[in-house]
């Protein structure tokens, strides 16, 4: 299999409805099994890919950015103490706890929950496997496609962000 170039702008798999449907089904099953509140799939660069569960009370975009930063920072700390088998972080709280674990080289799963962490850890392996398999299928399907942005008028530099007057 051809390895994707990590720098190509469209390297993370371009996700179509079928991918998101499979990911959402896996996340939904996980919520049913664990009674967790919210589950997110995020990219290690901090992007939110998809989520299931409660979202009204949480700023999921920011949670995604911070969770990826926290995970990567902890992974680096683990490396500094020569621990190669770092795979997850768990923040235990009074109202909500957060569990964040590795899915593949590019993607993380974040779980926000009130239930016992043991249940989350027990079911997370199956869920991450389903997600990783689907992302791999997406990578194989369309490794280099981009988005047709030809409608954009690149001659107008003010078109994108405007300053309030």
């Amino acid at each position, binding site marked *: 299999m051809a390895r994707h170039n*990590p*720098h*190509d*702008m*469209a*390297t*993370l798999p*371009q*996700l*179509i*409805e*079928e*991918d*998101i*449907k499979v990911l959402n089904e896996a996340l939904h099953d996980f919520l049913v099994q664990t009674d967790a509140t919210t589950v997110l799939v995020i*990219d*290690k*660069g*901090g*992007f*939110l*890919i*998809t989520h299931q569960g409660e979202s009204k009370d949480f*700023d999921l*975009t*920011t949670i995604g*950015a*911070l969770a990826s*930063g926290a995970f*990567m*920072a902890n992974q*680096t700390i683990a490396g500094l103490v020569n621990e190669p088998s770092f795979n997850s972080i768990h923040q235990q709280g009074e109202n909500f706890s957060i569990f964040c674990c590795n899915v593949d080289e*590019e993607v993380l799963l974040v779980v926000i929950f009130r239930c016992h962490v043991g249940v989350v850890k027990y079911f997370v392996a199956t869920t991450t496997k389903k997600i990783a398999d689907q992302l791999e299928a997406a990578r194989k399907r*369309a490794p*280099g*496609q*981009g*988005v*047709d*942005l*030809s*409608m*954009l008028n*690149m001659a107008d*530099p*003010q*078109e*994108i*962000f*405007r*300053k*309030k007057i």
Partner: protein
Amino acid sequence: MAIINQATKELQVKIVYYGPALGGKTTNLVQVHDHVQTAQGNKGKLVSLATSSDRTLFFDFLPIEAMTIKGFKTKFQLYTVPGQVIYNTTRQLVLRGCDGIVFVADSQYEKMPENVESFQNMLDNLTALKLNLGEIPYVLQYNKRDLPNAAPVEYMEFLLNNREVQVPSFTATAHKCEGVFETLNMITRLLLHKFINQSQSHGAPQPA
């Protein structure tokens, strides 16, 4: 690496503001947050992970939804890195997955060694991440032009913009919001231009 989600019709890109300590990276984000014209709900909260003295500890983060192109919502995520030398590991983490870079240089004469060192540090960190500055859109911003000891732009160009391909550079006084939007719009244009070129070379995707 940007995320293209055909199912939710979203394009997400990450722009990182890099540069020496106290150069004005966070100020750029604060000004964008305070002054950007967006539809209601399209501007996220500015999150700062800072020390008690307001120095960036991990990163600042500002998500903005800019526009819709052919049905795609374009979401920009703006990050800053901590400028202080000791936080190099953190800078590497924040650079991961970036699509474009704004290098914010401090125009004061005595800050030139720090500017050059920070630029070299950026190159080293990109190399460590197996990235190449030649392939990442980036722009330069010469900030703090209002200070009396600001070096001439030509001198800063000589120091920071003398690579094989010269990139767009902007003078700025970020705390007055001068040059901030010009810089952001240029990096955004370069990014989208790269996308257009890629999509033309690969062919447009089939709709989901």
